[in-house]
């Protein structure tokens, strides 16, 4: 069980590391498009290696529909990554990283709309909290810009 906890800690460090590396990219003047491209390229190589080593049969028999499905959503991830790094120039990592993580509510909304998943009280509470959080972050940034003149 200790190994599982260590893996969870590694996940925690990696997840936090991503946010900090985004900020370092902004601090050292790296180009948003270049960062996004090399991040995607590295992740492509790692995911390909992993699949080739551990699930080689699945990649050989992948149906064309699965490949086609990956195209628009992969492009969407690329746009999200690129524009996040671009927007970071104008704001703080503390609030930007939270905002981008709140987007995990979007697939839940889409699942309710397209797959008729039930909208229970807990999900409604989450959506209200996400909206309230976004409004507060927007208000805070607007106030800061007003103070900076």
């Amino acid at each position: 069980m200790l190994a599982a906890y260590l893996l969870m800690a590694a996940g925690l460090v990696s997840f936090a590391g991503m946010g900090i590396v985004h900020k370092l990219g902004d601090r050292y003047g790296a180009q948003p498009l270049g960062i996004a491209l090399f991040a995607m390229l590295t992740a492509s190589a790692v995911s390909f290696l992993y699949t080739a080593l551990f699930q080689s049969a699945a990649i050989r028999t992948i149906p064309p529909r699965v490949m086609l499905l990956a195209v628009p959503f992969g492009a969407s991830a690329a746009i999200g990554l690129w524009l996040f790094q671009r927007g970071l120039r104008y704001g703080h990592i503390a609030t930007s990283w939270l905002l981008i993580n709140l987007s995990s509510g979007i697939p839940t909304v889409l699942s309710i709309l397209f797959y008729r998943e039930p909208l229970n009280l807990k999900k409604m509470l989450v959506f209200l909290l996400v909206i309230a959080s976004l409004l507060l972050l927007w208000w805070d940034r607007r106030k800061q810009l007003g103070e900076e003149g």
Partner: protein
Amino acid sequence: MWFRWMMIAFFFNGLCTFGLRILAGLGWASQYTSSYLVFWYLAGTLFLLVQYVRSREKTRRSDVVIGCGLGLFSAGGQTSLGLALARGLPGSIVFPVVLAGGLFIVVAAGVVIFKERIGTAGILGILLGILSIVLLSLQ
């Protein structure tokens, strides 16, 4: 300007994981998730490569180092998460700890290391946001 860029990124970043839900709906998630992710990353790479060539930007060392670092943290994080779950830790512990804990570390780094100033509304927004992510990850 910040909020506009972030909201567009918010939309695309949220949309990009919905493909996995479609894959699950087709009954192919257990068999093809890792192969799907290979093509998912590849499609993103090709899209960005086209934009990069069109922009005629010169490649800087910082782009490569930061980009590769992000890619490694992303892949390492996903793998660690998956292996922790596979070794018996329940999702109700793993997801809130990794997602909310990671968020808390980044917020703390922003304030302590990068000296970012956050107002009362921002702090309240962060607390509500972390709470919503904890609740969302517990579903």
